[in-house]
């Protein structure tokens, strides 16, 4: 494995950015946004560089403190990690462009702290993706969660209650994760992921091992909002401020999903994790239940932001379903859905935020006729909505296609029914909204102007949804398949 300084450089961008924002804004409060953008842009540049490096020469690592793996902590990045870190920093860059406009309108007096907190959130999420150590992952888990609690609390009046509920459940999840790695540590004596993976097969019959898998899946599942632990998500996303939702919703649950892939696929191995205790099957069926519950709840909402929040529950469950099936095509679909759902959900939440700030409207009826007033914004919105339903050639179609193929290959006919049925439900609530946007007459009202800097990221995301669909085979063959766990990629052919 090659040594590379790129992983730590990404983390240093965010660390340095957060400290610089706090110190620089003591004198010049306006410096917060430019510093944040420089930090995120640099991190995005390093991420792309990292992806290119990994695609050329295979996985890279950085040994912190110069200590070799089980003694010290190392950062390890393979194709999947580089892919996810690019998604995280890319989405952050676009939301960052948008944030200046939104934050000035929503929370002007707390701008500097807000941006510092966003950098801390990104540090936590990137750390989760990059680290190769189980306990270090817990530390980054807590950094990102702490930042998310604070960011979610900045919102309307009820946001603080939503944030407190999230804090209690999130800490419970993190504690279960900690307990899981505690059991793992008492069995193997190591915390390094690769080292644990070599030691674990000897312990396959140990009951504690199964408990540790169950604990870790429960803990990460709580953060990922897998049914029946999805309760915190809808309130948190609905009441948080625009920028918070647009940055937390697309990437936070996805990073948890990636954690699950890594722990189940690379540390335990899917065979070991499912041995004698059907963790994978349970995860798949719970995710299926989550898809149904999320879609039905979304259909029942009139508040658009809340509707999208419930749809997030369903969409994240697609990823959970792919991981639970542990079948190569399903995993391809799950990883591809990380990218696609991040792109489209970010676009949709940015639009709801823009509408809320420009017109004050939140409900379905408030959206009537807005398509003609904001053609660019709602053009992108429509593309993202079509991707949510899964209409070709948008990215959403392909990830669901791979998931369906995976479910068929695994012989889980019931899950195929759920996948198709949920597409119909999604079509139900999305077309209900699109009909109001485009087919109703434009309202007579005064709208606050929306800056070009706020519209540009939305349009970019709308185009990206389609582009990612068109070039999906590149992602699948070049990025995802070569780095599936346990040589599964070879089995896809």
């Amino acid at each position, binding site marked *: 494995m090659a040594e590379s300084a790129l992983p730590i450089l990404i983390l240093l961008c965010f660390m340095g950015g957060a400290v610089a924002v706090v110190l620089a804004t003591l004198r010049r409060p306006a410096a917060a946004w430019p510093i944040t953008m420089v930090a995120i842009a640099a991190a995005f540049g390093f991420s792309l560089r990292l992806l290119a490096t990994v695609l050329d020469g295979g996985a890279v690592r950085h040994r912190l403190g110069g200590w070799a793996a089980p003694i010290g902590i190392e950062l390890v990045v393979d194709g999947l990690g580089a892919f996810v870190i690019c998604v995280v920093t890319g989405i952050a860059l676009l939301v960052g462009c948008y944030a200046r406009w939104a934050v000035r309108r929503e929370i002007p007096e707390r701008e500097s702290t807000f941006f510092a907190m966003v950098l801390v959130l990104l540090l936590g999420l990137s750390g989760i993706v990059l680290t190769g150590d189980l*306990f270090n992952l817990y*530390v980054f888990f*807590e950094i990102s969660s*702490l930042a998310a*609690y*604070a960011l979610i*609390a900045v919102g309307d*009046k*009820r946001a*603080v*209650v939503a*944030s*407190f509920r999230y*804090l*209690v459940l999130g*800490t*419970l999840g993190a*504690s279960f994760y*900690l*307990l899981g790695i*505690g059991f793992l*540590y*008492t069995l193997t004596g190591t*915390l390094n992921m690769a080292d644990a993976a070599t030691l674990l097969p000897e312990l396959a019959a140990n009951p504690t091992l199964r408990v540790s898998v169950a604990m870790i899946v429960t803990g990460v599942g709580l953060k990922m909002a897998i049914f029946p632990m999805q309760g915190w998500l809808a309130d948190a996303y609905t009441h948080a401020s625009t920028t918070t939702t647009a940055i937390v919703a697309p990437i936070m649950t996805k990073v948890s999903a990636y954690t699950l892939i890594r722990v189940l696929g690379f540390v335990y191995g899917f065979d070991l994790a499912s041995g004698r205790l059907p963790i994978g099957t349970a995860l798949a069926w719970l995710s299926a239940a989550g898809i149904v519950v999320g879609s039905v709840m979304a259909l029942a909402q009139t508040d658009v932001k809340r509707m999208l929040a419930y749809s997030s529950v369903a969409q994240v469950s697609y990823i959970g379903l792919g991981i639970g099936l542990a079948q190569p095509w399903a995993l391809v679909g799950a990883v591809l859905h990380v990218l696609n759902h991040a792109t489209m959900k970010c676009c949709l939440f940015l639009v709801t935020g823009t509408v809320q700030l420009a017109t004050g409207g939140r409900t379905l009826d408030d959206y009537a006729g807005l398509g003609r007033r904001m053609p660019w914004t709602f053009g992108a919105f429509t593309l993202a909505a079509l991707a949510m339903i899964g209409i070709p050639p948008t990215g959403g179609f392909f990830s669901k296609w791979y998931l369906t193929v995976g479910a068929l290959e695994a012989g889980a006919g019931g899950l195929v029914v759920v996948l198709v049925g949920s597409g119909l439900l999604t079509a139900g609530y999305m077309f209900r909204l699109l009909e109001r946007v485009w087919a109703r007459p434009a309202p007579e009202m005064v709208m606050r102007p929306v800056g070009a800097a706020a519209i540009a990221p939305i349009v970019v995301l709308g185009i990206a949804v389609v582009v990612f669909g068109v070039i999906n085979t590149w992602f699948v063959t070049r990025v995802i398949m070569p780095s599936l766990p346990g040589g599964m990629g070879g089995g896809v052919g």
Partner: protein
Amino acid sequence: MIETLVPRWPYVCTVVLMLVGLYGMLGKQNLVKKLIGLNVFQTAIILFFIVQAYKTGASVPIWDARLGAVADAYVNPIPHGLMLTAIVVSVAITGVALALLIRIHRNFGTLDEPELLDAMKRSP
């Protein structure tokens, strides 16, 4: 069952403490009480790690010329280092949660769950 649990009795004690904390988090209606439950729960997990690190008759993990660099002479230091981190994390979380409680009290005037739900229904 009993013969597996008796030699691991401190583990059973930490499980009991964990359940007490969990009960506080999920069963109590007052938000401060939930937070106290959370603290107890986290402390119980830390205790679990420390219990796993213990070796009968071993010394504290500080190098001593009389004992030399013999691993068996000292208690396992790794869980200790990890739990230093975990304690700091739990204090940080408590601080943030208390800040949230102050905001909730300012917005809705109560910290008891049923009253809070009422107040949230009444406010727009």
